[in-house]
């Protein structure tokens, strides 16, 4: 492996990070398996895992309950890892506090550090810092305009709040599509870029950014982690459950049924063409959802391009139980509710009585002569 790895690259220890209860079992297994791994080891299958972390982390049950009582899963799906964006990064590039093996509980990863990869268009080491800077200026940033921490700063998202790694999911279905690199697409690169590694790495990097990696339903699910939480709404003085109201729109329903064309939260809340990390409050004049900009947002070229200015008046996040804010919807629903109740109760009672009447067809409190049946009454 020719990774720019620093001084730790030569270490071949296994990294152990398991709870005591299964530690012994895992340790003995580790010893047996490490023997097997040394026999079958080949550079091609190990990707950037020079420290052989996956030797332990490949077990699907590798997990524990942490101090906060949360279930933590430490499993890494090696197949997915090798196809993922971080496949050339070593574990220790991000998990920097791990110095010995077996290791102590690792600290949270800081995504803004420079990793050992050289960014190919320049000579600098790569970092996600520019993304963090965009995020910090958005409505989701932890700091206010004066640079002070906002209230409830711990509620504001960090990278992994939205970017969960599919690597840690034990049995994930990759949206029903074949994961990874298209061999056909790759063959075009390989015509000139004859060393396969280069073509594969950059093809994967570029195409992963051109593909829609998450379907709309999944994006809404990510935002729902906070914005679908009633307590969170209350804590931050937000208006209503915007995720629930999204599901009630045609957009939401189409997304729910797996449409990939339908807009999710990001499509309307991010200014067309800007980074998704730059979401602003609707009060900001440059926000995509500022009342002045809504029509423009709806009309962005792929969606309602032919719509008029009035499309901005369509209310997306409607709380049907709030007559003060949404009087029209609320009164219409009440009207239909009463109409439906009146019509259906009337006929349910009618049918019920009709069935009861069949039990005693001849009975009546007041008997009227049958004879009248031969001549029609003068009722016209």
């Amino acid at each position, binding site marked *: 492996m020719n990774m720019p790895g620093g001084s730790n690259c030569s270490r071949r220890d296994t990294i152990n990070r398991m709870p005591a209860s299964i530690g012994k079992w895992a340790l003995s297994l580790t010893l047996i398996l490490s023997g097997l791994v040394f026999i079958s080891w080949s550079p091609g299958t190990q990707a950037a895992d020079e420290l052989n972390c996956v030797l332990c982390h490949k077990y699907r049950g590798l997990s524990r309950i942490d101090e906060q009582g949360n279930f933590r899963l430490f499993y890494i799906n090696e197949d997915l890892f090798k196809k993922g964006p971080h496949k050339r990064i070593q574990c220790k590039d991000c998990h920097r506090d791990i110095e010995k093996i077996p290791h102590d509980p690792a600290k949270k990863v800081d995504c803004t550090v420079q990793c050992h990869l050289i960014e190919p268009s320049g000579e600098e080491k790569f970092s996600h810092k520019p993304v963090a800077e965009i995020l910090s200026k958005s409505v989701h940033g932890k700091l206010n305009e004066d640079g002070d921490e906002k209230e409830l700063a711990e509620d504001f998202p960090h990278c992994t709040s939205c970017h969960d790694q599919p690597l840690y999911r034990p049995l994930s279905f990759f949206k029903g599509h074949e994961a990874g690199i298209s061999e056909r697409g790759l063959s075009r690169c390989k015509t000139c870029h004859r060393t396969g590694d280069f073509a594969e790495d950059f093809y994967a990097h570029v195409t992963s950014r051109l593909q829609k990696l998450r379907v709309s339903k999944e994006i809404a699910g990510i935002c729902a982690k906070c914005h679908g939480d009633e307590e969170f709404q209350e804590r931050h003085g937000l208006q209503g459950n915007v995720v629930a109201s999204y599901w009630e729109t045609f957009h939401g329903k189409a997304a729910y049924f797996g449409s990939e064309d339908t807009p999710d939260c990001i499509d309307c809340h991010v200014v067309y063409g800007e980074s998704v990390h730059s979401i602003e409050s609707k009060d900001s004049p440059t926000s995509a959802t500022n009342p002045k900009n809504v029509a423009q947002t709806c009309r962005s070229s792929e969606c309602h391009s032919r719509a008029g200015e*009035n499309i901005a008046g369509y209310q997306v996040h409607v709380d049907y139980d709030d007559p003060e804010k949404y009087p029209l*919807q609320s009164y219409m629903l009440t009207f239909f509710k009463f109409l439906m109740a009146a019509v259906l109760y009337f006929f349910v009672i009618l049918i019920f009585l009709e069935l009861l009447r069949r039990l005693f067809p001849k009975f009546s409190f007041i008997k009227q002569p049958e004879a009248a*049946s031969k001549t029609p009454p003068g009722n016209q």
Partner: protein
Amino acid sequence: MQKYPKIAIRNGKRYFFRFSLVQRVQHIILFTTVITLALTGFPLRYYDQPWAKPLYEFFGGIEVAPYIHRITGLILLALFLFHTGYWIYLFFKNRVGKLIREKRVTAGNLVKEFLSQEMIPNGKDGRDMVNMFKYLLYFTNRPPRYDRISWKEKFDYFAPYWGIPILGPAGLALWYRDEVSHFLPGIVLNAFYIMHTDEALLAALFLFFVHWYNVHYAPEKFPLGTVFLTGYLPEADMIHEHYDEYLQTMKEEGLEHEIKPQHH
């Protein structure tokens, strides 16, 4: 137009004419489109119910089902327009024509003729309804004697005939929301959204519960009354459901001596 005999005899039994072929075909188009619209519409309304997704997938899922829904909706709207033209045609042919021939064309007579059409609710319907409840509550042993169209059948008729002009334009506006937003305020789309889905629910519950009770579930009809296919109603049902019309038809056909009583 084909002339239908008022009474047809099949296997020694009397059948009474009710619906012409044009009417029966309209009804078949009506119920196939309404059922298709319900099946491709309600999975969206109840998207989070376990049956919604499989049912929607059956109609091709989100990529296909919306188009089935829209095309079916267009067919139903076309049927509505045809039917409106149809009764206006019949009105002019049978009633206005008569007034012209008799030289009695006045506004008052036109209104009178309009209101006396068989589908328009009238005073007898109100009296029949009161009588029906008297009968059902055992206060009389004589059920109401309905004419050609009973008040229950008028309900059945107006459920779709008032429902379509509400549902259809709302559906069209939601379909062509971009164009609509040039001349109507955006919140109208919110209103159309509710109108479309809630009126649909009312129509579906009424048709699949009340109307289907009348023609499918009711003990004497189960599993189905055949009049919607043949256009002719068996004598027993005619006596049960349209006794006044039965008496009149029997008299007109010179069968006065064979009239059966309302009760057996």
